[in-house]
């Protein structure tokens, strides 16, 4: 009997401090929860709830122009969406807009970063000037381009075009040129971001491996292809992911420059959802469009993240 009681006592002694630490941990967890709660609730109220509400709304017919027909319709909005030609064309425009702006940002940003890396002086100034477009509001950028840059005859771009012998163009009135213009505007504003990220990664690459590559008789192009590009890959993929998610949901710049026009020439999915909801006042269907955009964004981001992890 005696040994058993001894063992029990020992076990009890072992449990006591354990229990105590558990109490402490529990207390700490409660305190942490209390500290987190306000931020958590605010996030819930401003992001999760509106999102849920959006999904809920998309299951209704909610037409402010014809309120008598309002009511729950289930998936009807989504069925309509699948046969809506304007949806498919806006989705296509979204994809074209995203792909071309992201590719341009990465290519131009990388080229600029490589050039600036070789600058012996004035790197700081260049960075400072380059970052300026990023800090502007997209709406302001849109206004600047519509008035100063692209206005017929007086805009800088049109002025240059006239002097270059191309002649005055209706930059925002021609469907194709309008699309090119909004792509150029987005690229202009956000290339500095890619440039800064890639420049930082370039600066972090060790110098000695380039010297080793020179002695190994690699040409400048081979050094770029075989060393710089693979080592920059994580940064490039990160830039692509971040810029893709933003480009898919771009709004303000296009809205202020063309508002989706002429016609629907620059009406990317985001703008179509806006127009449907707030111009045509068809809130239910607009919500369905927004949910569709959300799904597209999630799928594309998922694919990109999977690609990132692949290697």
């Amino acid at each position, binding site marked *: 009997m005696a040994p058993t009681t001894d063992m029990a006592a020992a076990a009890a002694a072992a449990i006591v401090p354990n229990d105590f630490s558990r109490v402490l941990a529990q207390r700490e967890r409660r305190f942490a929860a209390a500290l987190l709660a306000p931020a958590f609730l605010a996030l819930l109220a401003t992001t999760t709830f509106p999102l849920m509400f959006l999904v809920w709304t998309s299951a209704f017919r909610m037409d402010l122009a014809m309120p008598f027909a309002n009511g729950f319709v289930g998936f009807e909005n989504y069925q309509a969406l699948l046969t809506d030609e304007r949806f498919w064309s806006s989705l296509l425009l979204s994809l074209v807009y995203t792909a071309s702006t992201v590719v341009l940002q990465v290519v131009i940003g990388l080229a600029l970063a490589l050039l600036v890396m070789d600058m012996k002086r004035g790197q700081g100034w260049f960075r400072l000037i380059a970052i300026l477009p990023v800090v502007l509001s997209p709406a302001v950028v849109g206004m600047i381009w519509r008035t100063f840059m692209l206005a017929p005859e007086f805009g800088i771009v049109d002025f240059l075009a006239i002097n270059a012998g191309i002649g005055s163009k209706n930059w925002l009135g021609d469907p194709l040129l309008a699309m090119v213009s909004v792509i150029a505007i987005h690229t202009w504003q956000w290339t500095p971001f890619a440039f800064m990220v890639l420049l930082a990664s370039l600066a972090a690459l060790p110098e000695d491996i380039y010297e080793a590559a020179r002695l*190994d008789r690699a040409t400048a192009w081979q050094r770029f292809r075989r060393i710089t590009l693979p080592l920059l890959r994580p940064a490039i993929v990160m830039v692509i992911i971040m810029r893709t998610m933003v480009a898919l949901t771009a709004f303000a710049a296009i809205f202020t420059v063309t508002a989706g026009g002429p016609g629907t020439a620059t009406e990317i999915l985001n703008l179509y959802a806006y127009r449907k909801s707030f111009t045509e006042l068809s809130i239910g269907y607009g919500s369905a469009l927004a949910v569709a955009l959300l799904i597209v964004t999630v799928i594309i981001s998922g694919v990109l993240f999977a690609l990132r992890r692949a290697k």
Partner: protein
Amino acid sequence: MSGRGEVRFEDIIKMHGEFAALKGVNFEIKPGEFFALLGPSGSGKSTTLRILAGLDAPTAGHVYIDGKDVTSVDARDRDIAMVFQSYALYPHMTVADNIAFPLEMANMPRAKIGPAVVDAARKVKIDHLLDRKPGQLSGGQQQRCALARAIVRKARLFLLDEPLSNLDAKLRLETRAELKKLQRSLGVTAVYVTHDQEEAMTLADRMAVFMAGEIQQVGTPAEVFAKPNSIEIAGFIGNPPMNLLPARYINGDITIGGRWLKTTAQLAGERDVIVGLRPSALRIVADGINGKVDLIEDLGDSAILDIDCSGTQIRARVNHDNVPREGDAIAIAARPQDIHLFDPTTRKRL
């Protein structure tokens, strides 16, 4: 491989702004030689190697390789292989890809690259690590990978920039011996930068000793050790370095601590000199310079004594079987041929 890898530096000057990193360097390296550039940090030895490699351009002067002036030839076109102190392995490539890289750049056909890579890896004993990335290797393995990358291409010059300095002491000794064997078996000219005189002494056929941007002495390690031609080299070569003591010289004799020592010098007259005495050349005698043993550093097979000779500190290295005790009064002397004399003003050997 004779006639390949001959190097000549002619009046090479390198300025960094106002600072002269190299103040007119001249030397020659013979084909097949293991040549060491030895000197303390900041003495210009690494700058010399970088100029030889073509990574930096000299401010003035000419570099010749195999008789051709290559001063303005890019590093790419000099046919030189180099092992960097940091190893400079390509971090995103496997060991095999790292070793294959110089061959691919030389447009060697794929079928020949594979065997060449395995062969080079086997020579430095890393053929079992070919699939690893540099980040998964130990320091010693990375170093071997860098070596393999340098030897895989049969370059005419093989440069090594402090290749052993990042290894631990035991591995450094092992690799040192292997490096020498490797160089011998390849028969290639090697230029080796180091601040470690022991490495230079053991590895090099000849060496150049750098001090403050200038070459102070060129010669075989034995020559430099036996006849250092300046006070700086005398104080740099040898472990522990030479004792350097001011003394009075009169017609072939010198006086230290009130004692007269004979030298082999033939100079007549009387003058001030700096006397150089190697710790290992000093022996304990019955009648010599008197002193008291301050401190004993026991090295196992020998011991280093710090001796106080009426105010002058002298270090002596003695055999393990006749080590005195701390505080003992002893007398030391050196043979005339072991006494080096230097001019205190020009700091050159007399």
